[in-house]
């Protein structure tokens, strides 16, 4: 019985590790492929002529579509449509759904940082 339990414990641990590895791989692929950074062209550079920036993010120097590297928690590429402009904490913000967002530019696009 003890041996069986050890076996189960070991097997469960293995399955957990495999799940973590799989999740990590999926995240890595997602961040590289699904919405972001794609190294391109000779020397890791892409055809920047398609351009990104000032809100028309297309293919950037690295072939990025979207935000290269993704956005950290608390940063958003868009906010809910029903918002109003307010001043909060000394910043010009947008208020929507009980949340204050401070606008900023990142990689040439407007992003919104949660203030509270």
């Amino acid at each position, binding site marked *: 019985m003890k041996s069986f339990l050890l076996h189960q414990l070991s097997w469960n641990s293995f399955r957990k590790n495999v799940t973590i590895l799989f999740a990590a791989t999926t995240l890595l692929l997602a961040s590289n492929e699904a919405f972001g950074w794609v190294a391109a062209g000779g020397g890791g550079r892409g055809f*920047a002529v398609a*351009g990104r920036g*000032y809100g028309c993010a297309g*293919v950037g120097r690295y072939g990025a*579509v979207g935000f290269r590297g*993704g956005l*950290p*928690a608390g940063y958003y590429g868009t906010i809910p449509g029903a918002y109003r402009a307010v001043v909060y904490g000394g910043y010009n913000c947008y208020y929507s759904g009980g949340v204050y967002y401070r606008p900023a530019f*990142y*990689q040439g696009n407007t992003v919104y940082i949660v203030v509270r």
Partner: protein
Amino acid sequence: MKLTHSKSLLVLGLLAASLLPAAAAPDADQLLRQMSAKLAAARSFSFEANRKIDLVLVKGLNLPENAHLVLTVLRPNKIAAESTSKGEVRHFYADGQNLSLVDVTKNLYATVPMHTSIDGLVAELDQKYGFTPALAELALSDIYQDIRGKAQSVAYLGEGTDSGGSACHRLALPGKIMDAELWVGVSDQLPKRLITTLKHRPGKPQIKLDFSNWNLAAKTTDNNFAFVPSKGAVKVPMIATAEMEAAQKTNNVTQN
């Protein structure tokens, strides 16, 4: 079998044609050099472009599928751009001293010091802020070198007719992740179309640009590149790549 006189002439003609050397395809590399030299020689120029990004690339990212871009350049250090898409207008100004980015729709702007030439601007923006202004590569002093640095080779694909009805040379510029096809006008050696294909993604999505209204003698003044905030405009920070990377280390990365 008895051949008629006209048939004999036809056979002879075909034989003669087969013995003649086939017309050589234009030199793709040379065409690229000519295009680069022509743009490099223009001190003040402007052009427009319509860009279409395949839906699969913009889905869920709040990016415009179609955009109209206008670029104005005054060498060596001034460049201005406008991007108009559905529900969004954005401007970009660099006057050799400062760089300003404007979200016209939301009346937001950011200004940062940028004492550099257009070549330096493209490199510095990319390095410090992680983006390059759309189409700015066409304003570089040596486009040929830039494109050749990215393309693994240059090949001639044949002729095509652009949306304006002009005959174009079609050049293949394969890259590691993306392949590009650049159309260069036969009569004016100017870029007419650029199609980039993300060849490793499912469905091989594309980004297409159609260039138009090239003016290589645009009448520009410093005012075209000077940014003046409109009434009520709100100044916002421009986040540097290093700052965001620090935030990414301390927070989970989201897909927003």
